[in-house]
């Protein structure tokens, strides 16, 4: 395997042929925010948080799915990039209904971490407050569409690692969502093996493990009522 040399944020680096910009950055302790990327899953370049500037190339490229080339000059953190990443995160926060205080994943959430790292603490954008369903039909797991960021990690892990292909994406644009089987309740899925991989890879509280005790169920119920009252107040 041949070695390639490139410049990242002014530093001369060497890397293995075939590596992505993200891999090289991580090896050299350069932080690039990511969300849809997960080591071990095929990259889809969907969240666009990892975009970087490459000298001589038009526009911006996703670090997770751009393979390095000899002599490449990459900028991972310009002012413009910071502004764009912040705005992309703002879009995510207003797209769903992210109420951290009542979320099962509070303080263990990639989305929250990203907001802290990228410095996103408020938004100028209007909350979309969509009406989204929860699916609690599965015996052990739950899905809360309000917190889904459509990263498709669950879809990919289920297809690529578990081989069940229970999860998929339905709909277009702002109406797109993840579904199980042909949009049937998760609990009735014929393909789901209940392995729980999707729950493990989900970056937010959208997929979660149901608690063994009744305490967590109560928590969920409060969340739904809270959301409802919030939406009522929106209308």
């Amino acid at each position, binding site marked *: 395997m041949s070695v390639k040399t490139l410049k990242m944020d002014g530093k001369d680096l060497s890397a293995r042929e075939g590596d992505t910009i993200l891999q090289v950055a991580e090896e050299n302790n350069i932080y690039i925010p990511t969300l849809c990327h997960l080591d071990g899953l095929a990259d*889809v370049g969907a969240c666009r948080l990892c975009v970087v500037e490459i000298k001589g190339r038009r*526009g911006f490229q996703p670090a997770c799915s751009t393979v390095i080339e000899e002599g490449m000059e990459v900028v991972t953190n310009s002012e413009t990039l910071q502004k764009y990443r912040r*705005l992309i995160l703002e879009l995510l926060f207003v*797209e769903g209904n992210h109420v951290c205080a009542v979320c099962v994943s509070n303080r263990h959430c990639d989305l929250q971490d990203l907001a802290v790292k990228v410095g996103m603490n408020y938004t100028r954008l209007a909350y979309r407050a969509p009406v989204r369903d929860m699916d609690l039909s599965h015996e052990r797991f739950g899905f809360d569409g309000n917190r889904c960021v*459509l990263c498709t990690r669950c879809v990919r892990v289920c297809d690529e690692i578990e081989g069940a292909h229970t999860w998929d994406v339905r709909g*277009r644009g702002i109406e797109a969502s993840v579904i199980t089987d042909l949009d049937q309740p998760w609990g009735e899925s014929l393909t789901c093996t209940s392995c729980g991989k999707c729950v493990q890879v989900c970056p937010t509280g959208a997929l979660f493990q149901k608690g063994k005790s009744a305490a967590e169920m109560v928590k969920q119920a409060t969340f739904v009522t809270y959301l409802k009252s919030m939406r009522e107040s929106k209308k």
Partner: protein
Amino acid sequence: MESHELDELAARERTRQGDYHHQIGVCVGSGCASSRSPQIRAALEAEAKKHGHACRVKGVGCMGLCGAGPMVSVDDDEVLYQHVSESDATRIYAGLEKGEPVEDLVIANDTPFFTKQVRVVRRNAGKIDPDRIEDYIAEGGYSALRKALTEMTPEEVIDEVRTSGLRGRGGAGYPTGLKWSTVSKMKSPQKYVICNGDEGDPGAFMDRSVMESDPHLILEGMAIAGYAIGATQGYIYVRAEYPLAIERLKNAIKQARKYELLGENIFGTDFDFSIEIRLGAGAFVCGEETALIASIEGKRGSPRPRPPYPAESGLWGKPTLINNVETFANITAIIEKGSAWFSSIGTEKSTGTKIFALSGKITNIGLIEVPMGISLGEIIYDIGGGIPDGHEFKAVQTGGPSGGCIPAVHLEVSVDYESLKALGSIMGSGGMIVMDDTASMVEVAHYFMEFSKSESCGKCIPCRVGTAQMYDLLALIISGEATSADLQLLEDLCEMVRDTSLCGLGQSAPNPVLSTLRYFREEYEALLVDAKPVEAK
């Protein structure tokens, strides 16, 4: 078929046609067909039968003036009739016998609408019966393929296309010869040719018309491409909303196979080429090449990051050449008449012609083919006949939801890839939506953003949520409740969505906003709550 058989077939067909005293062409394109042209054709055929078949009545492709349909032509376009109905059949026939056209139906064919056009791709449209391969062959069809296969090496074919300067007509204007050369250099026993007929811009029907009017032109162009790059299989991806185009293409493929102009050992050479049709379910984003390929593979039609480009890894991971319908339709003329002839049309960097679909507030609604480099003013006023109802021209949107508007001060602009881009618009695939002085440009931007928002595939965040937010902000501005901070936010979103979206849909979705802001910012500002008083200039 063997080489010489093509000439024999052409000669036989020309003799057959020469035996008719007259040929009447009835437009059977989608536009005219929806206003009863099949019935008109039947009425004319019945009339011809009464008079002993000395006159041939044929279905022909679109003649361009769709707004004046149903259109009927007599002896190519010696006489053109507009707004024809079934009851006119007797009069038209009587006129033929007397040698006097039916005055009240005649539409002048020496107006700038006709004389200023240069028809390369549409040379057979309105002339041949798209359902008969013999008509196409009589006009010289399939001789370019024969020339390529029997007189040229694949490299020579690619060279010819490269030096012609032809650029992709699907929107981006990528040099076609360069693309062919890239795919030809890929080492792979299996390669594919794909024709992109997904055409989904609002107001665009250029490709539909080419497919409906002259389907063999596309098949022949694809076969030449297959020979050039080393592929034996081609696919035409057509949206299911184009049933007539699909039917014509299917029929054309069947006829070409029958004459062995597709299939194995074409013209006795060792070149094999087959073409199949694949139907798109009508998502605009499926016109994007990587989404289109995913869709043919039976997957969800969402774009993926490039590189790798399809030229390297396309359909089923194999090197794939993907070109637009109109791009393929230019190939036979280049091979037949040579690259020097082709590049003598148009400008230095934008050679050949371009088909545009004129719609909106313009007198002559329809399809036109013009040399690149023609001025916008000539298109609007000479060919298009100007703005109806005593209104003034305000702007024209080119490139549909991915493009921008060009205001009246730039009517002099040369219509070519670079000049339109410099004005913040794009050539696009050929839609031209004309707006008069009653148009609100904020509403225009709002209309196109609604399109992009609903056609976004939802895969990447900037486009999925960004288009929805921009749409809402535009609605807020129109409602008169927005502040200058909202306008600033809209502009910030435009930049970010343009720069970070995964595919061309998101990357170009902000264009209509950016270009209306560039030329008509005062219309936005006038709607703001904290509207700045307009400064006197």
